[in-house]
C-alpha cells in the first residue's frame, strides 16, 4: 500500500485543452520530479480543469511550484496536505482490490 507520508498534493487550476496535460506532465518529467498519482476533472463549463498531483515533499518542491506557476496554461498552484485528499480514498480502494 502506498504511503502518503512525506507527500503533498499540488493542485493546479489550468486551461482545459488537449495540450495541457503534455505541458504539465512534461515539466515534471524533464525536471526529474516524480509524480506518484494524478487526478484531473474539468470545472464548471469546462473552460478550465483542476489537476491534482501527489508528489514527494522534498527540498525541490518550492522550485517545482515556481516552475509550474510559469506555465501559461496554469492559473494557480496550491500545495495541500495529502491526508484527507481524494488520494487517501483512492489508496484505500486500490489496496482493498
Amino acid at each position: 500500500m502506498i504511503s502518503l507520508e512525506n507527500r503533498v498534493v499540488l493542485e493546479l487550476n489550468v486551461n482545459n485543452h488537449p495540450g495541457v496535460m503534455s505541458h504539465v506532465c512534461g515539466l515534471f518529467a524533464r525536471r526529474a520530479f516524480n509524480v506518484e498519482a494524478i487526478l484531473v476533472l474539468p470545472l464548471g463549463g469546462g473552460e478550465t480543469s483542476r489537476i491534482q498531483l501527489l508528489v514527494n515533499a522534498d527540498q525541490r518542491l518550492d522550485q517545482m511550484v515556481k516552475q509550474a506557476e510559469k506555465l501559461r496554461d496554469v492559473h494557480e498552484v496550491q500545495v495541500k496536505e495529502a491526508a484527507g485528499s481524494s488520494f487517501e480514498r483512492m489508496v484505500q480502494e486500490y489496496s482493498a482490490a
Partner: protein
Amino acid sequence: MPSMTGAELLIRLLERQEITTVAGIPGGTNLPIYDALGRSSRIRHVLARHEQGAAFMAQGMARSTGKPAVCMATSGPGATNLLTAIADAKLDSVPIVCITGQVPLGLVGTDAFQEMDIYGMSIPVTKHNYLVRSARELLHVIPEAFRIAASGRPGPVLVDIPKDIQCQSVTFDMLPAPGTPETSPDPDIDQLNRAAEMISRSRKPILYLGGGVTQSGASETATRLAEKNTLPSVMTLMGLGAMPHSHPLSLGMLGMHAAKHTNLALQECDLLIAAGVRFDDRATGRLEEFCPDADIIHIDIDPSELGKLKTDCVGIVCDVKTALEHLLANVQDKQRGEWVDRIATLKRDFPALLPKTASPLSPYGLVRHAAEYVGPDAIVTTDVGQHQMRAAQAYPVTRARQFLTSGGLGTMGFGLPAAIGAALAHPDRSVICFTGDGSLLMNIQELATAAEHNLNIKIVLADNRALGLVQQQQELFYENRKFASSYGNALDFTTIAKGFGIASADLANSEDPASDLRDILGSNGPALIRIPVNAAENVYPMVPPGAANTTMIEGAAND
C-alpha cells in the same frame, strides 16, 4: 465587418506588431500564409536556405534590437529544423515568434504526409506554444504570442497553424490591439532597502551582471551604480556589454575562461550583487566553492531563478532596471580604497593572458585587430568553440546588444545566420562574425542568403582544421587522446565563399595581413576572411568542468 482568411489575418496582425522582416522557408502546409505574405507591402521576406538558419536570423534580429522577431516554416521537416534554434532562444531568453504550417486539422493525428507533432515537440523548448484550431483564435493568439515572448523573462513562442485554418474565412468587428510586454510586478521596497543597506555595510562587494541586465535595458544604470558605490563588476557571457570592456571597474567575464584575477576577486568578496543571472555552472564553477565568504543578493524577474541553485540569498523578484535604479538612489557615494587597491594588486599579479595580440594572424590578435578595424559601432556575433571564448575574452565590447553569442545552449552554427539577422535589423551598421571551421560548416548554406541581400557582414574564420575546443578537452582531460576532433581534409573556404558570390581573402597568403584585413573589413557587402590558426593552441585560463573557479589551468604569458 472585415472578412478575410486566417492567413490574411495572420499577416495583418504581424504588420500591426510592426514586424518588417520575416525569415523563413515555404512548403506545402504554409503556402496560404506565404500567399498572403507575398501580398504584404510592409513585410519583407528573407528566404533562408535552412529553417535553422531562419530561426537564428530571427534571433539575430531579436538579440540586436530587443524586440520579438519572426520566422516561418512548413510542417514536418521544416518545423523540426527550427527546433535547435528555438531551444537556443529558450536558454538565452530571446523573444522570437515561430509560425509553422500544419497539416489540415482533420488530418492531425493520422500520420499524414509531413505531419509532425511540433506542438508536443516544442513544449520543452518554448516559453509557450499554440496549436490554432480556428481562424478566429488568431485574433487573440497572435497578440498574446508577442506579449508572452516579450514579457518578463523573454523567450520563444511557437504558433502551429493547420493549413485549412489558414484558408478559413473569419469575420470580426475590429482587429485586436497589438501585443505589448506586460508591466513588471512592483518590487518589494523593504527587500530593496535591505539590499541597499547590505551594500553599504559590505567591505568587498562585487556586482555580477548577466543577460537580464541587457534584457531590461539596465546596463547604464548598472554602470552608474557601480561608479557611485565603487563596485568592481563581473559579467557573464550573456552579460558582456552590460559595462564597457574598458571601464576601470570592469573585471570582464567570470567563470570557466575568465582572467585569473576575476575569479580570485570573487573568491574574496564579502557581498555578491547578482543581477539578471542564473548561476550557470560555466560561470560559477563548483557552486559550493563559489564566493564562499559572500552574502548574496539575487535580483531577477523570473521567480523560479531565485533559490534554484543558490538557496541562501536575499532574493528580489523584480525587473533588474527597476531594482538597480532603486539601489542607485539609495546607496552612498563610496570610494572603497582598500578593496580597489586589492583588486588592482590581483590585476597586476594575475593579468588577463591574451598572448601575441600584436599579430593579426594569432588567435587573440585576429580578434583585437578586427575589432579595431570595424570600430565600436559594429555588431559582433560568434559561433561556438575556442574562437568564441577568445572573442569573449578579448573583444572590446562597448555596449549591451553588441555582442551576440549562443550562451546557454552553445550552438555551433549560430554565428552566420545570427549575423544575417543583425544586419537585416541594422542596415546602417557593419556586422562581424567570429567563427571556426567546424561551426561555419553547420550553417554555411546561409552564405547564399548573405550574398543575395548583399548584407554588410564580415566573417572572420579562425581555421584550425579541427573542433578546437573538443581537442582541448581531450588533451587536458582524456590524456591527450584526440579522436574525431580534427578534419582529415582541408577545405578551400575562400573558393567556397566565391562560389556563393562572396568576396574572400586568405590571410595565409598575405604579405601584409594587417593591411589586407583592414581593407576587406572596410569594404562594403559580405566577405569571408580566412585566418589559419594552430589547433594546438588552447584557450586559457580554463577551469576544469566541475572544479572550483580557483582551480585554473593557466596558459602562456603575454609577450
